[in-house]
């Protein structure tokens, strides 16, 4: 894949779906206590695309990612994923007893990868990729939240996933750090061709990053609208084009939330 940032790579890869959900439903509990988390979701995520999912509380965003990651099974419906997935959380979920390097090495080891020396070299390269080469020997609690998320991204990429699932990964970061991480993620995505499914409650973030923004309803989660983002890359979260489209998505979301009032 060529490292262009003008959006043309999206079209080239839109031919085949990396993730396909048809009529996927997930319920928890039984009888009177049965709660429908997501209800009949149809979704196609084209290979190599960057798809953002936005929704208010209770839209089953995290459930959706757990299903795609294979951590849970759908109650009904069909789900297919082409290739391996890696999941990134809002908290880094790094292992505090390992250095950043050790965390990435463990991911390579669990993937079934190579000799110790090769693992070390590969982990080092992954950390360089997220500009953390100088902090390889630091432990997670010795670096900032933004650095932890970058290390978590390196660890996720070290799993060599075809599909990268991100569950509000930048939700707990300050605005400056988040902007930089948007840029970093965008560059990594466009150079590696990994399919990204990115869940957020931040509408601007979704428009800033996604080829497409999927709006989910709440309780139960359903696909309300799928909005293509034609804004050329690289984008800036401050740009008026991003703001305009974000306003549209936000209106749509607000409509959905209002249904739950009296």
């Amino acid at each position, binding site marked *: 894949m060529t490292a262009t940032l003008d959006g043309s790579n999206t079209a080239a890869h839109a031919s085949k779906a990396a993730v396909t959900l048809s009529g996927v439903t997930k319920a928890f509990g039984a009888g009177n206590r049965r709660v429908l988390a997501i209800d009949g979701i149809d979704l196609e995520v084209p290979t190599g695309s960057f798809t953002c999912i936005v929704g208010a509380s209770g839209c089953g965003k995290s459930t959706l990612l757990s299903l795609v990651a294979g951590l849970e099974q759908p109650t009904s419906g069909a789900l297919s994923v082409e290739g391996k997935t890696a999941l990134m959380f809002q908290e880094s979920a790094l292992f505090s007893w390992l250095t950043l390097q050790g965390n990435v090495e463990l991911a390579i080891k669990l993937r079934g990868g190579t000799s110790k020396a090769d693992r070390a070299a590969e982990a080092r390269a992954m950390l360089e990729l997220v500009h953390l080469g100088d902090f390889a020997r630091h*432990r997670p609690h*010795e670096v900032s939240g933004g650095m932890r998320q970058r290390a978590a991204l390196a660890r996720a990429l070290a799993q060599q996933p075809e599909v990268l699932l991100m569950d509000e990964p930048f939700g707990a970061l300050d605005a400056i750090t988040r902007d930089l991480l948007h840029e970093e993620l965008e560059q990594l995505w466009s150079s590696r061709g990994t399919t990204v499914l990115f869940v957020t409650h931040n509408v601007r973030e979704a428009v800033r990053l996604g080829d497409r923004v999927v709006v989910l309803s709440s309780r139960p989660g359903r696909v309300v609208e799928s909005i293509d983002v034609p804004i050329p890359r690289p984008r800036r979260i401050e740009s008026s084009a991003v703001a305009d489209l974000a306003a549209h998505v936000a209106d749509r979301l607000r409509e959905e939330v209002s249904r739950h009032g009296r």
Partner: protein
Amino acid sequence: MVVETEQLSAALSGLDALDVVAAPAGRLRRARAVILPKVAATIVFIGLWQLLVASKWKPEYVVPSPFSVLHWMGQNPGSLLSASWVTLSRGLLGFAIAIVIGGAIGILNASVPVVRSAMGSMITGLQTMPSIAWYPLAIVFFGLGEHAILFVVVVGAAPSIANGIMSGVDQVPPLLRRAGRTMGARGLTQLRYIVLPAALPVFFSGLKQGWAFCWRSLLAGEIIVVALTNRGLGTLLQENKDFLNYVGLYGVMVTIFVLGVIVDGVLFGTFDQLIRRRWGLVEA
């Protein structure tokens, strides 16, 4: 693209430099801050002891001055050292067996829910049992000898160690297990690379507690079980009392106290701090 990458790299490294806090004050200063108060407390304690002697509350052969106790210790280093060695090696053997047995029981309980609901509360119950209550039975089983002591030491320490593993595993954040699962770690792999390392700080507290139980059971055993060929600190303590050598009695007690401080405070304490710091549970 290249220009953009460079800009991003510069911005990120600037931010990282701002975010990462400088290393704290040197080791020497930290050590001094830890050691000085302890030295001061020891001096105050010896001073109070000497005051008690000076007050003539009890005759001097019952409460001897700290200096005559230290003098006695200086005159009998051989018997104190060999008794300390005998007691410590008994303790280490029992502790090692307790780690194997308690560890196996702990891992079994932590990973198999049925075993847990069957055995869990029993283990906690065993932990509350005063170890001295085991001696009559142990003597009936094994006679007045090494094996009776070893049995009680193991029974005293193993529940704490098992409990340490169990509560350590219970406290592993679900997010870490989830992260491990998404990385492909399941079953034993999950246990080895994620659950047990995450449980280590709490497990280590269990070990520390296990050693405390082990040490207590051991000294009680050496006093109760009289027919021992190798004379440990408990035996020495009892002998000094029987021969009315109260200075020696104090000397052995001081030895027991110092050993306790060294093993519990210095060895376990240092490792505890090291683990907590590495695991990010305390400020560096």
